[in-house]
């Protein structure tokens, strides 16, 4: 029998494969479901993905709702919102969490309107307030200067998006068993994906990167971003940039980290020639480890750094590359 209610996570498929963020959500969802004593279900929408449902069970799901159709091969917000909305209205989860990726952030604002409930964006922490069994959603606000705890007392499901990499997935356990529920709702769309144009760039998308080497005004010019790319490649990372560097066209907007760019949470963030304006700190201060290189010993970036080097990035970075190569 299908178990209604409970905690749901929205799985994300990229290039036909269940993406890592889906397993991160299951780690959050497992905690919430265990406290509430309810089942944890994952929703999996895509084409040729049914075979990957077992992987979601192995990462913590008790149940997987699978909608597998050629028409769901590409993410189209109208059909995905209708499919998910249909599942939600029939099976009534208490809680629904998605990743704060371009997909989750495009989809969930459609769903919360349809379901007439609350939606909290970009959470970094989730827990259950045991007395009222309500989801407590914690998110940074005002440029990361404050943390806001938000509840959804007046609507179901309680919905939020969760910042990628805010949690490690549970170790895969292939001995876990779960129920796979195949669903066949209306999957048609009035929209069409014409083409995907991949970025010609070194490394993973910033939100997925384990290491980010970021440059700011102190890099003194577009030419010098080549050394950041070299360092990033050596460390298996990606290149980021401050708003100042993007505004001067030294780096593309897709690299911008901060309030008007991306929020990132890599294992290691190396800030090169970045002073650390509020605008920038908002997007990177949640990184596991921060290394900062800046000529100004008073620079704000040093206040969020685990290791600060007072020096010219244009000297320190090439020397670091030399040491890594030797």
């Amino acid at each position, binding site marked *: 029998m299908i178990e209604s209610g409970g905690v749901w996570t929205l799985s994300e498929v990229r290039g036909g494969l269940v993406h890592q963020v889906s397993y991160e959500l299951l780690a959050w969802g497992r905690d919430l479901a265990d406290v509430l004593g309810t089942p944890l279900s994952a929703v999996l929408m895509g084409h040729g993905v049914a075979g990957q449902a077992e992987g979601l069970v192995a990462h913590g799901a008790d149940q997987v709702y699978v909608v597998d159709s050629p028409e769901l091969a590409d993410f189209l917000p109208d059909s995905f919102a209708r499919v998910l909305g249909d599942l939600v209205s029939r099976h009534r989860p208490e809680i629904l969490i998605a990743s704060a990726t371009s997909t989750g952030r495009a989809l969930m604002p459609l769903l919360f309107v349809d379901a007439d409930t609350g939606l909290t964006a970009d959470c970094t922490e989730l827990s259950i307030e045991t007395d009222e069994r309500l989801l407590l959603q914690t998110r940074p606000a005002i*440029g990361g200067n404050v943390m806001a705890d938000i509840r959804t007392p007046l609507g179901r499901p309680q919905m939020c998006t969760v910042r990628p990499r805010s949690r490690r997935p549970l170790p895969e356990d292939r001995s876990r068993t779960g129920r796979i529920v195949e669903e066949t709702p209306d999957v048609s769309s009035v929209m069409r994906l014409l083409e995907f144009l991949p970025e010609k760039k070194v490394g993973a998308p910033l939100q997925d990167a384990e290491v980010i080497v970021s440059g700011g005004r102190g890099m003194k010019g577009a030419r010098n971003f080549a050394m950041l790319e070299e360092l990033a490649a050596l460390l298996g990372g990606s290149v980021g940039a401050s708003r100042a560097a993007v505004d001067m066209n030294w780096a593309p907007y897709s690299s911008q980290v901060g309030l008007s760019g991306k929020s990132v949470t890599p294992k290691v963030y190396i800030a090169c020639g970045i002073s650390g304006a509020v605008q920038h700190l908002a997007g990177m201060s949640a990184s*596991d480890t921060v290394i900062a290189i800046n000529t100004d010993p008073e620079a704000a970036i040093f206040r969020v750094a685990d290791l600060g080097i007072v020096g010219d990035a244009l000297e320190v970075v090439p020397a670091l590359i030399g040491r890594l190569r030797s």
Partner: protein
Amino acid sequence: MRVAVLVKQVPATEDVRIDDATGTMIREGVEAELNPLDLHAVEEAVRLRERFGASEIVALSMGPPRAAKALRSALAMGCDRGVLLSDAKFAGSDTLATARTLASGLRREGAFDLVLSGERATDGETGQVGPAVGRILGMSPLAFVSAVESVGDGRIVVRRAVEGGHERVEAPLPAMLSVVKEINVPRLCTLGGRMRARRAEIPVVGAAELDISDDRLGLAGSPTRVVRVSYPHVVRKGRVLSAKDGLDAALDEILGVLESRGIARGGERA
């Protein structure tokens, strides 16, 4: 073609100061400005008129009376009309109540082919309100738009910025576009534009003029509640070394940190 732009007045980001004792934002004496990401939405609306023709561009905002200033900035850049939704009953709105209010304000202005917003506001940072307004009005949802390729024959083709690249997507009109910063470089206002904006009348629309009941507005109509605000001390007690005292020693430290975090040469994990 009729185009609307949703704009928001926000505190100037470089100016954000937090009261250490209470963890709340100090609003006194803080400069307010048009949300920087909304500048790109206004600019794109004006460019869409230049490229494809538009009979009218209406800028709409919800906020206190002083938010009329944000609308004047939009008018100075080329919007034809500004409308401010302002009422004590709107206070405490979360993203859903805000979206309902804005959608109702738009309905009052007639049908629009395109509604644009910035990707998100730099204060709330949710990015939910624009797409939600579009959903309420039954428009095609297009989030993270980085370019508008064509508009015509009831269809629109845009590029969307997503992880690892861009998507080209076609959708029927009417459509709601939330735009990212890379879509354009906003123009500087002309003196004439600023003069016109300063003189423009900005009608203020209250709750009584909207087609929503009071229990769907403001705090009463908001499913979410902020229960606590805390001030995180993200300040790290990191070590700071000077490269002048020895570049090699500084490099040793960096390599040590990388190693301790399991990051090694070539991205192999130690």
